[in-house]
């Protein structure tokens, strides 16, 4: 029996993915591109037709021109670098702290119950409410940015980790125990992979929020970065540059989101949310 019924298999390991997905993916990309083109056309037309004064809304070509020109200056890239620095460092600190604390408290139900009320109180406090505190503590140092970013991102990831740790399948857990996996081995081979989908969701949300708060801190506190550049451009009445910087942050946000999605697909290629059609 051993030889013959291996043929009742599903798709062999390296089977090609169904074609439908790539084709509709291409169609979707084309639609997306057309959408952006339409949006830019509208943006170009509104100030040119005089519907809005171009003192407040310069046409798209002008803004993109300024952006292209500024993109050749080192000052622009220094601002982008500062923003990304605050974003990445803040996100990394929040991620590490949330994972360590989430796994620890996830394993200690009583401590978790003890802290839940406090967490529920601290979590909804908007990070921007901490701006005065940040200024008081760190002034315009990058640490002010970090305080805001870490505070907001920590809760997003921490809550996801707690959900993930609680979601371990009892059968998987019993299997691991019956095969002699100790506590650490179970965390590594069972709890961690179970938590990963939650963790990636938390990371994706936090990556976007970290950028928002990084820019906010720069804009309001004046820590170095794109946000600070926007404030300076605004006060020197360089309206087109203000718009160019806003477009730059938008592009940054899109790139960050794409990056996290790629990471998610790689890390979770075994998970139902990613493996999708390949198994159907």
């Amino acid at each position, binding site marked *: 029996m051993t030889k013959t019924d291996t043929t009742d298999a599903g798709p*062999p390991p390296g089977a090609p993915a169904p074609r439908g997905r790539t084709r509709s993916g291409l169609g979707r990309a084309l639609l997306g591109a057309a959408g952006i083109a339409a949006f830019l056309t509208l943006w170009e037309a509104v100030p040119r037709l005089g519907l809005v004064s171009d003192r407040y809304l310069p046409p798209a070509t002008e803004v993109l021109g300024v952006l292209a020109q500024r993109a050749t200056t080192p000052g622009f890239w220094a601002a982008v670098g500062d923003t990304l620095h605050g974003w990445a460092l803040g996100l990394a600190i929040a991620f590490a702290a949330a994972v360590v604390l989430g796994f620890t408290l996830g394993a200690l139900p009583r401590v978790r119950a003890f802290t839940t009320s406090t967490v529920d109180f601290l979590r909804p406090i908007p990070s921007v409410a901490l701006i005065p505190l940040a200024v008081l503590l760190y002034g315009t140092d990058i640490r002010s940015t970090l305080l805001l970013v870490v505070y907001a991102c920590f809760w997003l990831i921490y809550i996801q980790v707690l959900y993930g740790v609680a979601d371990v399948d009892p*059968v998987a857990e019993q299997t691991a125990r019956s*095969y002699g996996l100790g506590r650490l081995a179970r965390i590594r081979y069972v709890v961690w992979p179970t938590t990963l989908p939650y963790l990636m969701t938390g990371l994706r949300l936090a990556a976007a929020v970290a950028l928002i708060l990084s820019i906010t801190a720069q804009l309001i506190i004046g820590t170095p970065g794109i946000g600070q550049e926007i404030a300076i451009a605004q006060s020197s009445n360089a309206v087109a540059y203000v718009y160019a910087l806003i477009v730059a942050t938008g592009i940054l946000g899109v790139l960050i989101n794409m990056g996290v999605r790629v990471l998610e697909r790689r890390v979770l290629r075994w998970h139902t949310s990613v493996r999708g059609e390949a198994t159907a």
Partner: protein
Amino acid sequence: MLKVTALQKIYNGGASAVEAVRDLTFELAEGELVCLVGPSGCGKTTLLKCIAGLMPPTSGTVELAGDSVTAPPPDMAVVFQEYGRSLFAWMSVRANVELPLKEKKLPKERRRELVAQSLEAVGLTAFADSYPWQLSGGMQQRVAIARAVAYEPKVLLMDEPFAAVDAQTRADLEDLIRNIWQRLGVTVLFVTHDIDEAVYLGERVLVLSSSPTVVQDDITVDLPAERDQLTTRQDERFTELRARVYAQIQQAKNSAAPAAAH
């Protein structure tokens, strides 16, 4: 080899305590294949978890080769009914089978050898690098069996392992278990609710009563060692044994009411 003595398990759900298992005593000799059948809800899974060291009994003892079982013993492997949840979706078939061996600290060479042998024994050599979810249900359960076999246990516990696969796959898997049992000489305790399966597979069938559970009958299956899905199932003796187990289970169900009132 495996000795269960006066095992009792009471679940303490606050005010309402439920006695799932009352008083179970039985023994498996080394190399025996014993099937455990009982009406549904009779505490088969509870019993198995106690034997596997996954759950402490309220009273009574489980002994494996003379040693009392208080935690999952290293000489025992469990195959669960829910293969989809028991296999780790994030690991390839090979990694699933190899993981317990890593935890046993076996050298790499030996691990590779055991994985290759056990995957061959279940006919899945070609699928070592697939993920479990890329395989059919029957194949997934074979991966779980390969993982148990590679672990080189003295006792193999199986908790209704074929309840969730289709009839044809089930027949194949039954023959696979007989085959593995004969070749490896491992002691097998096979829990099932299927009377035919119990008689076809077992050398002995233990019939459990309704909850609170005791051993109601212990039937020796005197069928030839070489069994075959067609001829064995048509054997007159098979039909007789099947009828006897069936009658015992009916009796267990009907006597449930007075036993519970007791």
